């Protein structure tokens, strides 16, 4: 009779474990390094457009074929609300002659409506000889910086179908204080 090994002595193969310590060491170094260099808050800049100087070299003075008329579209920020005006007229609330866009009930400014109104104006003047890129901002002396930046945002671009479109990209700040 052939030799039959004992059943008790047979053992199941020991599980093989991968040595993960080198990989763990790598991760422990990489993760803090990347965390320390990560930028949680992004910082941007708003470029300001100053009026061009009257002088300058002759080569830079290139007259456009069809000179653009200045619309001088202006947004004035006051403690009552926002006024929209141009070289020709001031848009006022027809009911009480107050600001074009009065403040909301909670005291905030209606930047969404301002954006919509500016889109409407842009559509009406597009294709004509009027300047369709420039807008001027002026404010009362106590208006805070955040309100000014939010007004600039509302004037600079608008969103259609999740895509940002140009509105009045050349935003200038008026030096005059109301």
């Amino acid at each position, binding site marked *: 009779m052939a030799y039959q090994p004992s059943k008790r002595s047979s053992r199941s193969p020991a599980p093989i474990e991968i040595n993960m310590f080198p990989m763990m060491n790598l991760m422990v170094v990489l*993760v803090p390094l990347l965390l320390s260099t990560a930028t949680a808050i992004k*910082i*941007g*800049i708003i470029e300001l457009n100053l009026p061009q100087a009257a002088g300058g070299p002759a080569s830079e003075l290139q007259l456009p074929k069809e000179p653009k008329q200045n619309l001088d579209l202006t947004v004035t920020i006051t403690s009552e609300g926002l006024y929209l005006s141009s070289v020709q007229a001031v848009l006022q609330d027809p009911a009480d002659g107050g600001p074009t866009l009065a403040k909301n009930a909670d005291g905030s400014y209606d930047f969404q409506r301002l954006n919509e109104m500016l889109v409407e104006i842009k559509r009406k003047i597009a294709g004509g000889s009027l300047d369709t890129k420039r807008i001027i901002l002026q404010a009362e002396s*106590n208006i805070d910086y955040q309100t000014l930046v939010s007004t600039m945002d509302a004037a600079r671009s608008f969103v259609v179908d999740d895509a940002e479109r140009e509105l009045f990209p050349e935003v200038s700040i008026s030096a005059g*204080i109301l």
Partner: protein
Amino acid sequence: MAFIPSRIKKHDTSPKRVSLNLTSMMDMFTIILVFLLKTYSTEGQLIHPSENLTLPISSVKNPAEIALDVVVSKEWIMVNNEPVVLISEVEEQPGLIIEPLSRMLQRYATEARRMEEMYGVKFSGKVTIQGDKALAFRMLIKVMATCGRSEYPNMRLVVYQKEA
């Protein structure tokens, strides 16, 4: 008859090998690593916002760039982290031009022009203005007017970018 455990087993005090299960930790690290690599930016942070102010939030997409740094915090006006004049003093003065700031900017402009002559580093007249979000418009105009008069007409306002 009651169970009597083996004497050898009863006195077995040799330490057993305990292995740590690292799989779940590896999973976590892998996810974090992939996320961080995805959001990693080689550009880095060119502008470090000052501690004494909160910048306004804007939807602007232009990235920050290096320029002379003018900070208008709640108490001080600083140029390249060097205090120049107290805000309370500026509030009291009637004119638009802030004299101490103008002197400091002109010193930087003179230095930059000398660098331009010696090493060919072009002087662009760029200045970045960091202002607190509660800063009054009259103060901003004073700072801007001073920068414009002191050979730094290319002004940029530093803001926090709004999350998409």
